[in-house]
């Protein structure tokens, strides 16, 4: 039996290939239907996001052939030339396949390390796999381990706690200053893309009003339509400065368009309410001297980029700790996987029945003592004989099945039905 993970991601495949593959996957019949029908695929799990396609499946024989069948399916699905697809695709086997899935779920393989969406996407894909009967006993276990690993990484490391984009940093800073962003207003000066993105982030986090000022009024109107805000002329900047809490500037002007004097007088008129200025223009739009005013917090693009870089380094450091967690969880999984052999399973089931007999014997000790020794021995022999008879057929069946390639799944079912996992799962959760 082999566990195979086959996929491509933002590192191995250019955007157009990913697009080709994920677009037809997103509509109509779920690709898992087709993958399940591929000859030789026993269980399957299919994950598709804008940055990756991953197919996890279990095969019991002719592994190489099944892999090429799945590849062929992907090629047809994306209508791609064979050699191009083969260049982009990676294939992982068994332990490496499981490790890769753990890393994906924990967001270590993402474009932005630590991003939060991937875990939800894996959960959703798992839900689909269960609904479409793709995930069986082995894949279930693997995905459960993957989700658990991802959660541990999220709670035990700080991988997701430092923002790594200028927009999010702006939101974090604004929250540090204002607490809640509800009832706060934003003034966007200029039409830079990054500035617009930052404004969007702020609006998603609750700011209620946005004013867009631009040298050409028509552009301001256009952006205002997009952001559902108000357009303003650059000449009115002073008046708007008085009524907003967060200002983002990104004009192409060669000189400062907001002087210290302008900020000071606006501050006076707004009775010193806190003012957060974000200047992402190069050359700068706001006189850096404005930062010396009380209750004014001025950040330029370098300040923000410094924070982004610092946080990237922090995430990278946390990613190393995350790899440790992944290795530990992988060990726990492998420990479980290695129990899927006939002999240890038979042994632990035998142990379990022996234990049950001993317990029941002790519980009945009081009345058993009233019997003569001979009878007690006979009862003991009888109990052992009944249990052995019951277990005989499953044991023989198990040995036969494990001679076949398909055995691990049977053993997994057996272990689950007789609840033999108890001991090993206790060990791994310690």
């Amino acid at each position, binding site marked *: 039996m082999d566990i195979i993970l086959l996929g491509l991601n933002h590192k191995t495949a250019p955007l157009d290939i990913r697009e080709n593959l994920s677009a037809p996957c997103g509509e109509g019949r779920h690709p898992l239907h087709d993958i399940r029908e591929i000859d030789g695929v026993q269980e399957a799990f299919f994950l598709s996001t804008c940055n990756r396609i991953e197919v996890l499946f279990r095969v019991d024989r002719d592994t190489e052939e099944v892999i090429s069948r799945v590849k062929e399916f992907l090629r047809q699905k994306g209508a791609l030339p064979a050699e191009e697809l083969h260049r982009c695709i990676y294939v992982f086997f068994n332990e490496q396949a499981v490790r890769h899935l753990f890393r994906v779920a924990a967001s270590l393989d993402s474009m932005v390390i630590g991003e939060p969406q991937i875990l939800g996407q894996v959960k959703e894909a798992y839900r689909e796999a269960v609904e479409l009967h793709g995930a069986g006993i082995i894949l279930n276990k693997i995905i459960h381990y993957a989700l658990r690993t991802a959660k541990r990484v999220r709670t035990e490391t700080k991988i997701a706690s430092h923002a790594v984009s200028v927009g999010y940093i702006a939101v974090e*800073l604004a*929250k*540090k*200053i*204002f*607490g*809640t962003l509800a009832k706060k207003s934003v003034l966007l000066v200029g039409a830079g893309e990054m500035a617009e993105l930052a404004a969007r982030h702020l609006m998603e986090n609750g700011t209620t009003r946005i004013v867009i000022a631009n040298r050409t009024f028509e552009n301001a109107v256009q952006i205002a339509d997009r952001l559902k805000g108000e357009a303003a002329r650059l000449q009115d900047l002073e008046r708007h400065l008085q009524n907003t809490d967060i200002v983002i500037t990104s004009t192409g002007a060669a000189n400062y368009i907001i002087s210290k004097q302008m900020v000071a007088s606006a501050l*006076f008129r707004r*009775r*010193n*309410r*806190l003012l957060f200025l974000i200047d992402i223009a190069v050359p700068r739009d706001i006189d850096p001297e404005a*930062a010396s005013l*009380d*209750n004014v*917090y001025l*950040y330029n693009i370098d*300040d923000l980029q*410094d*924070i982004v870089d*610092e946080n990237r380094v922090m995430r990278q450091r946390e990613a190393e700790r995350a790899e440790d967690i992944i290795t530990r969880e992988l060990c726990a999984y492998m420990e479980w996987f290695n129990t899927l052999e006939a002999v240890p399973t038979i042994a632990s089931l035998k142990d379990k029945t022996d234990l049950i007999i001993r317990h029941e014997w002790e519980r009945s000790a009081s009345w058993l003592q009233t019997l003569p020794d001979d009878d007690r021995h006979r009862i003991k022999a009888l109990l052992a004989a009944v249990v052995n008879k019951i277990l005989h057929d499953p044991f023989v069946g198990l040995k036969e099945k494990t001679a076949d390639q398909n055995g691990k799944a049977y053993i997994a079912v057996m272990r689950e039905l007789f609840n033999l996992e108890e001991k090993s799962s206790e060990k791994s959760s310690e």
Partner: protein
Amino acid sequence: MMTAIIHITLAGYLASTVGYWIALPVKRILVAKISTWILGCSFFFHSLTLIIPHLHGGQNPLISISGALSLFSWIISGAFILFQTRTKTRILGVILSPLILLVFFAASYQLTGDRLLPPHLQGPLVTIHVILSVAGEALFALVALAGILYLLQDHFIKKRRFHAMSRLLPPLEDLDRINRFGLLIGFPLLTGGLLAGSVWAQSVFDHLWLWDPKLIWAFAFWLGYAFILHQRMAIGWQGHRAALLSLVFCLVFLFSLAAIILIFPSHHMFSR
């Protein structure tokens, strides 16, 4: 019964203090939330310790240093719980809950014993005077504490330094809201307290005012309070300046009070 309620209150404050301090290293908001609930329950029992003696019609427990301390911690505890409904300042619990615990612990030593008050100290005017003055002072202490945190956080954001400390501190505007609330509510309370005190002085000593160091101090305190409130509401000294001013005022008055108590004799003995 009173002793039992005091013990429950103390235990509750202790539990919430421990909870807040555990929440810091383990980084679980739930722990801090539970601590806030525990603090809320302790506040309820604390209120009982203030109300019950009145129902029994016995001695007024407020007219003593321990009564005033108990009231002080009760006000801080209540104000903190009130803030939790309006602001993101749960982290203040780390500082305030041990403060409340300590002050109430110091107060609890004498809360149960019956003391005989001289007749001129009995009556509603003295009670009102104590309640309102202590409330005003407690709120001002909160304002000063929020001021310290504001200045720290302001420094971190201005200098672009972000570390564990700045992440923990509350947002600037929430701290400023505490400043505003403390001044707006605390000042009328203190004013009422001083008025009640002078009306009482009139009835006992036949003077509205005594040239006593402690009374001069109290009046100066009231003037300072009025000044900050005026600058804030009329001139618009918010944020940094309000925080700095409140803190400096608080420190100056604490030191001068300590000096006055140590150096001058006074009619107004807090500990009698």
